[in-house]
C-alpha cells in the first residue's frame, strides 16, 4: 500500500558579500531582514529535531550529526515555510505539499522570498557591502551545499528496498534534472578532464548509503526524522539532487521520484532496473558524460543513464496504466508528469538542445559553448565559470537563467501569492494561518507542532503529527469562527 506522497524542497543558497564578507553574518542579515519586513517573528521550535536518527536502526554517539546552531536566525513564514541560517547559508525549507506541481510553486516562492530578503538587506548596507544570493550547489572550488528533497514514505517499506529501487534513479536522473557545471572540483573529475558536467553535485558523493550530509555524502541518506507519526511514516531525505532554475526540471525530478516511490510501496523493488556494481563511481561517471553514451556495469549488462531512465519511465507508466494514478498527484497531473518525463527523454535521445527550454544543464551548456566559440576561449576560462555562476544569480537584472527562455509553469502573480499564502493541502495551511493571524501569540512553531502563549496559564503546544490534518478543508471553518488565539486554543483542546 502506498501513502500520500507529501513532499517539499529545502534549498541552501550560496551567499556572497556583507560585512567582513562573513557568510554567517550575511545569512543572518538576510533572514532577519525578511522577518522584520514581514510579520514573521515566530521562532523555530527544536523540540523534535534529531537529524542523527538513522533509518537503519538505533544510533550511537559517534553517528550523531553536528548540533544545530540554535542561536542563529530562524523563523516561520506565513506560507508555512521555514527561513533560517543553516551553517553558513540562508536556507528556505518549503512548506510540505501534496503534489509535485505544488512543490514547484513553493520552491519558486522561496526564490521570491530570497529576492525580497536580498532587497531589504541591501537597503541597509553600503553598496560596497551588498550581498548577492545564488540558487546553486557549489562554489567551483570544492565546497558544496545542498538542495534536499523530502518524500513521505510508508514505514513498512524495508530500507534495503528503498536503496535497491532508488539508486538507479538517483544516479541517472541528472540527465534531465542536472543544473550543469563548468569544470570539475575533485581530483578524480579533474583527472578525467571534465570541462562540463550534467550534475553540479555528483562528484561530491562518496558513499552509497549513510547518515552524513556534509562529509562522505551518501547517494541515499538515512536521516530518519519523519516529522510525523514514526509508526506509519518515514521521510526519505534525498540529498543527491541539484538546485534547478527550470520549473519543468523540478517538476519531473520530484514527479518521477514520487511515482517510483509509490510503485516501490505497492509492488516492491523487483521490477526496477539493476543496481550498478559500483554506484558511487557510476553516479560520477554518468555526470561527467554529456554525450549520454557512457554506460555502467551491472549484473545484467551495461546500462547508460538513458537506458535507466527509459526503463524507470516504463515502470511508472505501466503502473499508472494498470492501477490508475497513485496518491502522488491528481490523475491529470500524473499524466502531465509522465508526458514531460517522456518528452525530455525523447529530446535527450535525439537532440538534447531541443530541451534547452526545460533542462538546466542543456540551457547552460548552450550559452557556455556559444560564448566559448564566439570568443575562442579555453573551456575552463573564468568568463565561462562566471556564466555558470551567474546563471543562478537570483536578481532579475543579473540572472542568466531568467534570460535563456526556460518554460514557466506559474505566472508571477501566482508565485507572489504563494510567498504569503500557505498551501491548502497539508497541515502547512494551519501553521501558516496561525503565523499570519496570531504572530504575537504563536511563540514558536515547527513541522509538527505550534506553541501558543495566550497570556494566561502555561504555554500550550498544539500537536500536528499527521501532515494531512490541518488542511484548509479541515480547519478553515474553525479559523473563521474564532477571533483570538485563546479561542483557537480552547476550541482545539477542549
Amino acid at each position, binding site marked *: 500500500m502506498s501513502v500520500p506522497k507529501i513532499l517539499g524542497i529545502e534549498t*541552501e543558497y*550560496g*551567499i*556572497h558579500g556583507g560585512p567582513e564578507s562573513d*557568510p554567517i553574518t550575511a545569512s543572518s542579515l538576510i533572514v532577519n531582514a525578511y522577518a522584520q519586513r514581514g510579520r514573521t517573528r515566530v521562532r523555530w521550535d527544536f523540540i523534535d529535531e534529531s537529524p542523527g536518527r538513522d533509518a537503519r536502526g538505533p544510533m550511537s554517539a559517534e553517528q550523531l550529526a553536528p548540533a544545530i546552531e540554535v542561536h542563529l536566525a530562524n523563523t516561520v513564514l506565513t506560507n508555512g515555510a521555514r527561513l533560517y541560517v*543553516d*551553517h*553558513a*547559508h540562508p*536556507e528556505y525549507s518549503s512548506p510540505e505539499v501534496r503534489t509535485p506541481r505544488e512543490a514547484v510553486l513553493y520552491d519558486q516562492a522561496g526564490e521570491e522570498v530570497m529576492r525580497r530578503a536580498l532587497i531589504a538587506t541591501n537597503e541597509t548596507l553600503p553598496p560596497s557591502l551588498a550581498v548577492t544570493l*545564488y540558487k546553486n550547489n*557549489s*562554489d*567551483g*572550488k570544492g*565546497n*558544496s*551545499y*545542498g538542495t*534536499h528533497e523530502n518524500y513521505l514514505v510508508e514505514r513498512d517499506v524495508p530500507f534495503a528496498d528503498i536503496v535497491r529501487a532508488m539508486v538507479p534513479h538517483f544516479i541517472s536522473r541528472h540527465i534531465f534534472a542536472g543544473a550543469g557545471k563548468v569544470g570539475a572540483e575533485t581530483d578524480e573529475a579533474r583527472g578525467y578532464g571534465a570541462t562540463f558536467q550534467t550534475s553540479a553535485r555528483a562528484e561530491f558523493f562518496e558513499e552509497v548509503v549513510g547518515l552524513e*550530509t*556534509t562529509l562522505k*555524502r551518501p547517494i541515499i541518506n538515512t536521516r530518519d526524522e519523519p516529522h510525523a507519526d514514526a509508526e506509519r511514516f518515514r521521510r526519505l531525505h534525498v*540529498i543527491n539532487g541539484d538546485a534547478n532554475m527550470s520549473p519543468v526540471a523540478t517538476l519531473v525530478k520530484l514527479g518521477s521520484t514520487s511515482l517510483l516511490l509509490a510503485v516501490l510501496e505497492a509492488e516492491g523493488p523487483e521490477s526496477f532496473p539493476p543496481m550498478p556494481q559500483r554506484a558511487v563511481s557510476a553516479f560520477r561517471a554518468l555526470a561527467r558524460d554529456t554525450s549520454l553514451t557512457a554506460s555502467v556495469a551491472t549484473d545484467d549488462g551495461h546500462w547508460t543513464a538513458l537506458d535507466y531512465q527509459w526503463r524507470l519511465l516504463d515502470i511508472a507508466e505501466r503502473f499508472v496504466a494498470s492501477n490508475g494514478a497513485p496518491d502522488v498527484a491528481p490523475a491529470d497531473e500524473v499524466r502531465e508528469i509522465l508526458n514531460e518525463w517522456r518528452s525530455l527523454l525523447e529530446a535527450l535521445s535525439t537532440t538534447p*538542445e531541443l530541451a534547452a527550454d526545460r533542462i538546466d544543464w542543456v540551457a547552460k551548456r*548552450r*550559452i557556455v559553448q*556559444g*560564448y566559448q566559440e*564566439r570568443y575562442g576561449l579555453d573551456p575552463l*576560462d*573564468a*568568463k565561462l*565559470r*562566471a*556564466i555558470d*555562476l*551567474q546563471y543562478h544569480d537570483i536578481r532579475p*537584472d*543579473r540572472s*542568466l537563467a531568467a*534570460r*535563456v527562455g526556460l518554460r514557466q509553469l506559474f505566472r508571477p502573480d501566482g508565485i507572489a501569492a504563494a510567498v504569503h499564502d500557505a498551501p491548502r493541502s497539508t497541515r502547512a495551511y494551519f501553521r501558516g494561518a496561525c503565523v499570519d493571524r496570531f504572530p504575537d501569540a504563536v511563540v514558536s512553531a515547527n513541522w509538527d507542532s505550534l506553541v501558543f502563549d495566550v497570556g494566561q496559564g502555561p504555554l500550550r503546544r498544539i500537536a500536528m503529527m499527521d501532515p494531512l490534518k490541518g488542511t484548509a478543508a479541515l480547519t478553515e471553518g474553525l479559523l473563521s469562527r474564532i477571533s483570538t488565539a485563546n479561542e483557537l486554543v480552547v476550541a482545539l483542546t477542549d
Partner: protein
Amino acid sequence: MSEQERIQKQHTERSQSEVDEITVDATKSDALKAELDGLLDEIDSVLEENAEEFVRNYVQKGGE
C-alpha cells in the same frame, strides 16, 4: 498516367517535400543561431565585469 510516370511523379513530389523540410530546418536553425547570438550579446551586457575576480571571490563554506 503510366506506372513509370506515377513513380516518377511520386519521386519528384517526395524530393520536393524533402527540400521543403530542409529549407524549414535551415530557417529554424538560422533562427536559433540568431536567437543565441542575441542572447550572447545580452550576456555580455549583464555579465560581471571582472570575471576572474568575480569567480575567485566566490568562496562558500560547505553546508547541509
